[in-house]
């Protein structure tokens, strides 16, 4: 039983962190341990690109919806969606109006929500559902009953988006948002579905001679981080201190069957491993 401790003008509850400054590195270090509890380790997170898939409309969305529908039941999955070109338009107008970075971060989730609704309308008969943010604790129910939860990707930093480095764009984007969901729930792998064959050393849409990186590790990638990335930089810097996500895969959703093969564990596209 925890005791109440008084005597210095404050009322404390006895615990190893009682009275301590939670800013003190020595104190914070005491909360460290090698292992961390895995909440839902058997689930795969699949991120569907906004600009790369949704903005292409029917020709790109329908095949992906079909593959997701076929994969449901075989794999426990959560599907995340991006916002795409409407996000870019929102940000461009917001910056021109001089809205603070946090104000812009507050706005963009709505565009993803619209894509979540679209995908759900297509897949409802395959048991998809739009899951509200933070409803993580309903996931066992959904996954055990074979449902396919769809979530929005952008993290809820909203007005409280930290000041970005080197420019006005919010730093915590959709790829980071999905990564952190996977990490906090103890998931092992994420598959990002884009419209390129994987990670390149340069943006392949601008540089035809860009080279595909089929397999790499996080430490290798950090040594030679490409200038133009198809994933948020914050994903990689957060991965360094993460414990659960072991594998981030990028596949081309425009190639029929690639997502299905990735779900089955095949090394298609780019596979980035933690070590």
């Amino acid at each position, binding site marked *: 039983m925890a005791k109440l401790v008084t005597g210095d003008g*404050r*009322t404390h*509850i006895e*615990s*190893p*962190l*009682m*009275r301590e*400054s*939670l*800013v*003190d590195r020595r104190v*914070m*270090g005491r*909360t*460290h341990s090698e*292992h961390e*509890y895995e*909440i839902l380790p058997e689930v795969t997170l699949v991120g569907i690109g906004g600009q*790369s898939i949704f903005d*292409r*409309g029917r020709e790109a969305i329908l095949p992906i919806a079909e593959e997701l529908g076929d994969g449901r039941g075989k794999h426990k999955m959560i599907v995340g969606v991006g916002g795409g*070109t409407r996000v*870019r*338009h929102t*940000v*461009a107008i917001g*910056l*021109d*109006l*001089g*809205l*603070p970075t*946090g*104000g812009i971060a507050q706005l963009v989730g709505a565009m993803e929500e619209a894509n979540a609704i679209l995908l759900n309308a297509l897949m409802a008969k395959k048991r998809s559902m739009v899951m509200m943010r*933070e409803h993580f604790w309903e996931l066992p129910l959904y996954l055990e009953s074979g449902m396919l939860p769809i979530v929005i990707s952008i*993290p*809820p*930093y909203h*007005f*409280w988006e*930290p000041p*970005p*480095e080197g*420019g*006005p*764009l919010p730093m*915590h*984007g959709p790829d980071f948002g999905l990564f*952190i969901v996977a990490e*906090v729930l*103890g998931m092992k792998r994420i598959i990002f579905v884009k419209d390129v064959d994987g990670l390149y050393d340069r943006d392949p849409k601008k540089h035809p001679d860009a080279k595909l990186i089929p397999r790499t590790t996080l430490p290798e990638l950090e040594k030679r981080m490409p200038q133009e*990335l*198809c*994933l948020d*930089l914050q994903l990689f810097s*957060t991965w360094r*201190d*993460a*414990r659960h996500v072991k594998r981030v895969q990028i596949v081309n959703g425009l190639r029929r069957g690639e997502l299905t093969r990735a779900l089955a564990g095949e090394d298609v596209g780019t596979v980035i491993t933690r070590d």
Partner: protein
Amino acid sequence: MTKTIEGPLAGHTLTTQADVPIDYQPVALMPDVRVLKLGGQSILDRGRKAVFPVLEELVAAKDKHQLLLCCGGGTRARHIYSIASELEMPTGVLAALGGYVPRQNARMVQMLLARHGGLFMLHDDFEKLPLYFRLGCIPVMTGMPPFGYWEKPPDHGRIPPNRTDAGVFLTAEVLGVKRAIFIKDEDGLYEDDPKKHPGAKHIARISAGDLLARNLPDLVVERVVVEYLTRSRFCKELQIINGLKAGNITRALEGGDVGTIIHA
């Protein structure tokens, strides 16, 4: 083909700050608001003896200044962080759990301020601030930012790096407020924890860069806040004052340099 909306960011990856061809002139949304944090362990856990005089000073100033009160967590947050760490829970879970305590504290403060216009607000009510101020109310909210399960793991340990100090700073930053005021039980920043080292030297004014360069084992505010300060656009100063000394809050609200100022 991609159905793109034309515009300066069409096709942009949004993963780099480079190639943003927009002349960005940020607007301060509500620069006159005074954003204040009521310390959890330092003020609220002291109960009536500390809380009543602090609230009295704030009420006396409420018709002169727009006050936004943000509450810290304190010992109950430490207790739940401690148990959750022992269970080896991820940082995001700790952040979500830690969020309940400052919300309780904000509700307590609201009850005490109700007859003076105290109003409990959630993050989702943030856009109603202009209404609350126009009505002469004192909005009270949690200091915790809404990151919750989305909080990043720190490089060591599992305590969420963005807690109530960070939330208060980020609130000031998005509102376009120059100075965030932290009401604690010490006169500001010291070279070590003054509660354990009574001889520790007081620092009246220091830049965020200098403070980070000193690499002190302990700080009076969360480390991320000092880092944010080096790249913020609006909130350029943190003021840490001792709320247990009568008059400090009033002087700080008038812009007086009491306590410690950490500047960008």
